[in-house]
């Protein structure tokens, strides 16, 4: 039975699936969670979450702190803010994206404004 990882944020389920290993930035030091880990509850600091599948690094996330619970081969990460590392590029890119999103939001707003 593989380790099930679930990353939850108030906005979405950021990640859900079976992993070999995940490395998390704990407040008292980084730690890795493998299969059959003992029940464990700890808090996170700002840092990067590494997810390994098939002995290869598959994904990385940036978290701004949170809580991790491990029990019965299930690892649940609760975080208020999360960002997939692949979506982070240069500052320029982010600026453009947010402009575009702003425009879309404005358009939607005009459409739904009725009062």
């Amino acid at each position, binding site marked *: 039975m593989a380790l099930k990882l679930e990353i939850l944020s*108030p906005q979405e389920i950021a990640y859900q699936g079976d992993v070999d290993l995940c490395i998390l930035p704990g407040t008292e030091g980084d730690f890795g969670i493998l299969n059959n880990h003992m029940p464990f*509850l700890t*808090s996170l600091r700002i840092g990067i979450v590494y997810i390994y599948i098939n002995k290869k690094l598959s994904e990385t996330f940036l978290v701004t702190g*949170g*809580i991790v*619970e491990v029990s019965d081969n299930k690892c649940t990460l*609760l975080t208020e803010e999360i960002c997939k590392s692949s979506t982070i590029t240069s500052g320029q890119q982010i600026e453009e994206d947010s402009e575009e999103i702003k425009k879309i939001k404005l358009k939607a707003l005009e459409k739904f404004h009725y*009062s």
Partner: protein
Amino acid sequence: MPSLKDLRNRISSVKSTKKITSAMKMVAAAKLKRAQENAERTRPYAEKMKEIVLSLTGKVNKSNFKFGQKPNANNDKKIVLLVICSSDRGLCGGFNGSIIKYTKKIVSEVSEKGKGLKYIFVGKKAYLSLKRFCGDSILEQIQDFANPTIKFELAGDVRDKILKLFMNNEISECHLIYTEFKSAISQTVKSQKLLPVEEEESDDQQNKSSSTYEYEPSEEELLDQIIPKNIAIQIHSGLLENLASEQGSRMTAMDNATRNADDMIDNLTLFYNRSRQALITKELIEIISGAEAV
């Protein structure tokens, strides 16, 4: 008796009202769907958080952590903070009315026990109607919060304010008042205790399964970090439910209004036709009796 022209005007004005209400119903239905999706997306996070907090509070000595009952702070003058969620816009049936009624009930209950009150309003409508009722004890009012979506940062801001007041001993309790979304036609106003955190009766099974956990750092320190997060998510999901309820309530209200407008148009049209016929008959009688006289 109104003239035929008056009647025609009235019918056309009711017709245009009907157009507006049915359009509003459609918009509310679309918004309701989105609001429900948003509320659904926070649910896994909120549920897990609740589970963790429950398992932790069962294990921690109450007086040892920051956000528990304060044993001897402000005992004679307790102040309760109410965070009241309402909508920014009207025309949503009894939605805001029931929030206001519920709030007044809570206020009278609390002041009967000799406790003071303070308020934070999220949403314009409850603030406007309770402004005079509450007087100077309004700490903050937040408007235009759901535009276009409710951001998690808002809940964080409110949480920070509440915790600051609590740590400075300015308040001893905090309740969140919001409308729980059951379905598009049924919503109930609810209040939820945010602070102080109390040990809840959890069943034995849950305690057993969590008894083998290893905590890092200690349970108390963990709880001190988790409670603020838990309060934020409680406020956030309360606001989301509130928004979904608002849209559901508006949808039903507008549906009713559209149907009422239909009834009114039917009645008015009948009355209009009757009056028109009566007028024609009267004219005919006049002509005929005139002809007979000659």
